[in-house]
């Protein structure tokens, strides 16, 4: 990002309009002018002022365009080939044949060049695409590593949550760090929640059985890692996950208990 004001004050735009910069410098200014409307406005004002100045230096009003028109037309007429010639020497035929051949060769080269250019453009696009994929993969890898680090912490308590009647195949896991009061819940083993329903995670204390809501897992994404980080300041003795209406419920719907697991003492 350039400092627009500083750039304008440097006086480079004046020299750009003058045409006294090198070709590379000019191209760079053109690029920036196309990007920044303030620069474009400045360039146009400089040009307007210079147009006034140069007009004032003209000794007279220029002659009309007709004088130019006749010149560019007469020039083009020169290229017209006389057709009335009776005898055309063989050399002329050869000349034309050579010219035609040359044209064909040039045309061929040109189209080959075009093909190559197209190919380069395609390759560049593909490279960009691949770069994007690599970046994404690296990002995901970094996230996964971060997670692994968390799960490998010494003090983490791992609680497997087993299936209940309603979905015999379901399972989930909780990783709970008591020190940081953070828990990570892995719900990959749960079926996708039906439309309008969400999973809700509960912390339970036994004797008497008291459920406390830990989180409504409404950011559920079937394609994501399906790992959620939640706060757990509770003295949990067990964890359960129920299916609840959107927004979650105040107390668990026990008929919809999907998984349950007890914290090992």
């Amino acid at each position, binding site marked *: 990002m350039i400092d627009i004001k500083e750039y304008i004050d*440097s006086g480079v735009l004046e020299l750009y309009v003058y045409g006294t910069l090198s070709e590379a410098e000019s*191209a760079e200014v053109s690029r920036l002018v196309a990007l920044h409307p303030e620069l474009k406005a400045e360039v146009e004002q400089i040009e307007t002022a210079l147009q006034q100045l140069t007009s004032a230096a003209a000794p007279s009003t220029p002659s009309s365009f007709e004088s130019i028109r006749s010149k560019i037309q007469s020039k083009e007429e020169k290229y017209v080939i006389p057709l009335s010639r009776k005898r055309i020497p063989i050399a002329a035929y050869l000349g034309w044949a050579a010219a035609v051949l040359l044209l064909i060769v040039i045309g061929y080269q040109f189209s080959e060049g075009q093909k190559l250019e197209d190919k380069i453009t395609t390759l560049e696009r593909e490279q960009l695409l691949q770069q994007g994929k690599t970046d994404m993969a690296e990002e995901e890898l970094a996230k996964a590593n971060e997670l692994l680090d968390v799960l490998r912490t010494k003090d983490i308590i791992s609680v497997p949550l087993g299936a209940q009647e309603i979905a015999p195949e379901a399972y989930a896991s909780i990783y709970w760090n008591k020190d940081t009061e953070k828990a990570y819940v892995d719900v990959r083993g749960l079926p996708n929640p039906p439309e309008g329903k969400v999973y809700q995670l509960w912390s339970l204390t036994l004797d008497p059985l008291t459920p406390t809501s830990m989180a409504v897992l409404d950011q559920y994404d079937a394609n994501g890692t399906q790992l959620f980080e939640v706060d757990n300041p509770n003295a949990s003795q067990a964890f359960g996950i129920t299916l609840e209406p959107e927004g979650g419920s105040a107390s668990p719907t026990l008929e919809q208990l999907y998984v349950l697991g007890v914290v090992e003492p």
Partner: protein
Amino acid sequence: MQPDQLIAKFQQKDESAFAELYERYSENILGVIHSILHDQELSEEVLQDVFVKAWNNASSYNSKKGRFFTWLLNIARNAAIDKTRSKAFKDSKQNQSAAFFVDILEDKNNFSSKVDAIGIKKYIEVLEPICKKVIQLLFFKGYTQKETAEELDIPLGTVKTRNRICINKLREVLGVT
């Protein structure tokens, strides 16, 4: 504003677009040529050469490289400077000392309708001698910064900013700010 559409048509050899561009820029270009040659008849002649050349090389203009006005300017300066090297020009100008664009402006009484004549006259009055020289060399003659610094014996680093100050003054009196 640069008439981009007209320029595109001109590059496709559209004569009426070219005529409009001529209408728009020919006086500017004549002014530039005249400030180099100081000869009305010769300048008119070079003006025609410049526009014929522009027509024949229309495809060589590229907006990514610079302004259309600048492109014409470069053709004009080169053509005019070429002319100063011709024998006929040297013979006729032998006794004339180098004149500046300001001399032309000072001598002039009739300005075309495209010009803010009062602004220009005022500009010449307030213009410092160094500005006259910087603009003459950098703009009208197309000198590089280095050539300008050497010719005027001023530090290279100050050419660009000094020139901007001179052009700002011009814009101020013309109300182009």
